[in-house]
């Protein structure tokens, strides 16, 4: 690894591990290159996981800042992308849990910001984004498996690492998710709905 400061353009071809090492050594431009490399894919994942643009931007920001904060602790050599999506996935799950809690609270008590209740950005995105609309029919853990496998290209074994599960369990979720999607199609009359 060169110790010379580099420009973002010069680092474009560098692999993730080299960029993380250079950032941990203090080269901010190395992180900038990583950010630009993954901004769209992490945001797309969060957007389709959460179904709401504001939350997805928050999750992206939290993910990338966590990378900044943990750069010196990064030890997952060879799997930066998996590490990145592990953080992103956790950020999304956290927001999903909070949303569920807020939803429960709304049924029993007024919130501090009534405007937030009236505005439903999730519904807006679902009407606009085909993937988000389709995957909204699934549970969060089914949705994350399809997003990571189909749209981010992770293998089922890699997803098991990201989600802290087993490859068999991940494949089972994907299997059930696809059957669920088939069963929910209007033209479906054969598929069974998994238990």
């Amino acid at each position: 690894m060169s110790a010379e400061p580099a420009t973002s353009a010069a680092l474009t071809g560098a692999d993730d591990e080299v960029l993380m090492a250079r950032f941990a050594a203090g080269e901010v431009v190395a992180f900038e290159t990583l950010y630009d490399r993954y901004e769209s894919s992490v945001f797309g994942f969060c957007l389709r996981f959460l179904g709401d643009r504001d939350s997805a931007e928050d999750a992206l920001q939290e993910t990338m800042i966590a990378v900044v904060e943990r750069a010196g602790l990064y030890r997952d050599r060879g799997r930066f992308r998996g590490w990145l999506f592990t953080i992103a996935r956790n950020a999304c799950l956290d927001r999903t849990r909070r949303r569920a809690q807020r939803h429960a609270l709304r049924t029993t008590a007024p919130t501090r910001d009534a405007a937030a209740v009236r505005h439903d950005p999730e519904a807006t995105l679902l009407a606009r984004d085909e993937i988000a609309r389709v995957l909204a029919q699934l549970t969060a853990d089914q949705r994350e498996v399809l997003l990571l496998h189909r749209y981010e290209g992770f293998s089922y074994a890699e997803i098991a690492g990201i989600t802290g599960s087993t490859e068999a369990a991940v494949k089972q979720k994907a299997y059930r998710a696809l059957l669920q999607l088939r069963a929910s199609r209007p033209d479906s009359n054969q598929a069974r709905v998994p238990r």
Partner: protein
Amino acid sequence: MNRYDPTGSCDQTRALLLDMAEGSLDGAEAEAVRVHVADCPSCAADLRALSASWAALPDAKPASPSAEVRRRVLGRASAPVGSAPAGRPEAAAWSVRHWVGAAAVVMLATASAVGVSQLTRGPGAPGVSQGDLTAPGGRTQLALGDPIPSFAARDVFTGEPVSLDELRGDVVILNVWATWCLPCESEMPSMERLYRDLGPRGLRIVALSIDRESTHMVRRWVEERGLTFTVLHDSDGAFERAFAGSGVPETYVFDRAGALVQHVVGPRRWDEPASASHLSGLLQSDG
């Protein structure tokens, strides 16, 4: 390797149907699946459903967040606020904090964007030189025994300015934090539990956000977590410019007399017995 036993069960076949539907199965395994589903209506139906669903998944279009997210993140990467990324050279220097005593008045050179942030250090202990008080960058180091500063920032819910020294008479926990700080988030629930337990006895928790984001964003973050203690927002970095810190979260505890009695660097479980007992003792004291 052929994982499929041609004499095996539907369960064995189903373990391969997903790969088959995705088109990633070939050779002997694919042939074995074809043989099985030819005689098994249930597996054949699953394979048709899986294949149809897989093929019907929409293609992804590139998604772009607002440019503001990039600006915030890269700003954080290039100018760490109080806490440099772990492992970077400046991190060690930022963690040194052995300045003691207090005797200075530090006025902020820049008023906050909302016009209320200011800091004044009151008269302090004698015999301490100015050099002992000033941390790198000309900032002041709070030391044990120092009076609670008259720093003011706006409450994220009411919009009203709150000056810390107005809280003298209560035991005050001043927690410096940011929404992007995961350790900060991790200690918030215990802080909330502590506040609900000891707040009625005179414990004030003031969480000072140093986020550069909008106050609305900070307020939303707080709302989402159901925090009920006071949250102030120092959006222009006035506190950081005035005080040397080793990062976030960083917490200062002041007794009823307004003197700094505890300084905590990093997250803590605030409602654990030892911590709660210490604070309970402070509440019983007249200061």
